[in-house]
């Protein structure tokens, strides 16, 4: 990791009006959480629906995409990445620095708001908040790694990422049961399901896979994405195709 790369990345991610884009969605989530509490008298089940449906299903992937775009795609887009790549730094170091900044941003702008939203919307002794926090954290690691790599590989990373995160996981999973098990969200939810134990089913906090399987698949996906990202960044060619 390199402090200068991290500093530049953070400035590119949060500088000027871009931080505003990252605040809109968490703010909406917190408003929805307050509305849910008002409408359903702070019941953990309703809170869990908000958490799994909107927070884990839409907000987290979308925020990871926004962050990944800001961390690397924007620089590739305007070509300024060549100045960073031309420095005597290992590409691995550059990518890891960018991933670290991205993950930190996702934790601040997506994982913590998810926990806050679940706590606001209704909880019993903080269990649900912790379960969603852990799940969101693991999902954030995998999503960030995948989307940053996607941003290096494709200039249409945002669209492809959204197609995967929202269409594949949310819509297609509703029709094709097999698809549901191939989903970062389900793998991450397995952690929370294990933490809640017997109460998971009652609060409709369910995952398609067990915790061991989920964690192994998450680790494999993340490692694979990071490896591919380093490889692709080492041989990056800039094209002007829009």
């Amino acid at each position, binding site marked *: 990791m390199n402090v200068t790369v991290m500093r530049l990345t953070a400035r590119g991610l949060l500088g000027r009006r871009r931080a505003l884009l990252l605040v809109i969605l968490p703010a909406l989530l917190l408003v929805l959480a307050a509305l849910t509490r008002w409408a359903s008298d702070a019941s953990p089940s309703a809170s869990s629906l908000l958490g799994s449906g909107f927070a884990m299903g839409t907000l987290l992937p979308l925020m990871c995409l926004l962050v990944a775009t800001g961390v690397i795609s924007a620089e590739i887009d305007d070509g300024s990445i060549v100045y960073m790549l031309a420095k005597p730094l290992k590409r691995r170091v550059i990518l890891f620095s960018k991933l670290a900044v991205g993950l930190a941003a996702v934790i601040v702008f997506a994982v913590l708001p998810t926990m806050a939203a679940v706590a606001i919307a209704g909880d019993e002794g903080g269990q649900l908040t912790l379960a969603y926090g852990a799940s969101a954290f693991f999902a954030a690691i995998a999503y960030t790694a995948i989307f940053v790599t996607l941003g290096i590989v494709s*200039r249409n990373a945002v669209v492809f990422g959204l197609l995967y995160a929202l269409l594949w996981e949310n819509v297609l999973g509703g029709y094709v049961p097999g698809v549901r098990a191939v989903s970062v969200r389900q793998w991450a939810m397995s952690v929370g399901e294990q933490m809640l134990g017997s109460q998971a089913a009652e609060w409709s906090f369910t995952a398609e896979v067990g915790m061991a399987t989920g964690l192994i698949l998450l680790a494999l996906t993340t490692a694979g994405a990071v490896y591919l990202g380093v490889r692709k960044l080492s041989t990056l060619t800039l094209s002007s195709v829009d």
Partner: protein
Amino acid sequence: MADHTPPLTSATAGGAEPAAPQSQSVIHDIGFRHYDGPRLGRGWIVRSLLVETFRGVFGFGRPAKAKIMPWVLVGILMAPPLIFALIAVLLGLDELPTSYTEYLPTMGFVVSLFVASRAPYCVSRDLRHGVMPLYLSRPIRRNDYVLAKFAGLALGVFTVLAAAQTLLFVGALLAKLSVGAQIAGYAQGLIASAVLSLVLSAIGLVLAAFTPRRGMGVAAIITVLVVLGGIGSVVSTLLTQNGSATLGGYLAAIDPFLLVDGIAMSWFGVDSAIGVEAGLGALGGVIFTAAAAAIVGGGIALLMRRYTKVGIA
């Protein structure tokens, strides 16, 4: 782009140039090769810009790589109508599995993605590469540019939606459903698609024009559309549950897709896609239509304001 050095600002050479006040500042001859033919003028430039934008929406005239994205999304948008048409034909249903106007909110997310990925294409490159002065050195005005880009994008989005509606219509006819009702439904679907493409293009183009980085533009548009959709459906559901269904029906229209759905429901009497705007009647139709017109008009006005400054600094 007033008077530069003399060789750059030779007066208009051809005779077809209308005697507009700014025609003196038009640069035609930059000294490479002389041209004496007719100059086609402002109207033709606007037309060319519109056609070029429309073709660009689908990646025509661009490398193969630029064609992947639009056509993947077009394919996803065409799949459900095709499947529904096949179902209607093979199972001999007496109505389509989804109505023409219901199709739009159902596929809302993919339509949003299409607009989000294409709107930045239309404006971001010109902004990023600072070529606005080059356009303006020809007999075209800033507002012409804005209108041509807007019309090109809206036409592109409408073409895709209309193609999907046509697929549904053909399927309905092949399934031998009642022709009169299907023609009426098809026409309603086309009108709703036209309104939707105007509204979405206005929103998308404004956001794209304020985010010159293409990737960020895509992300900004999709975020805004998702947020609007989330607010619209949650607020309306909560208000409807708590007894103020009318207010809930109106506030649902924060979501552009439900706005168009509300217009279709009020004017054509079709079933609402998610059933929240029940019973708003003609007044609802007027309000929704006014809201849609305000979004389109406001969007174009914002774009024109934005482009008064582009290329000066």
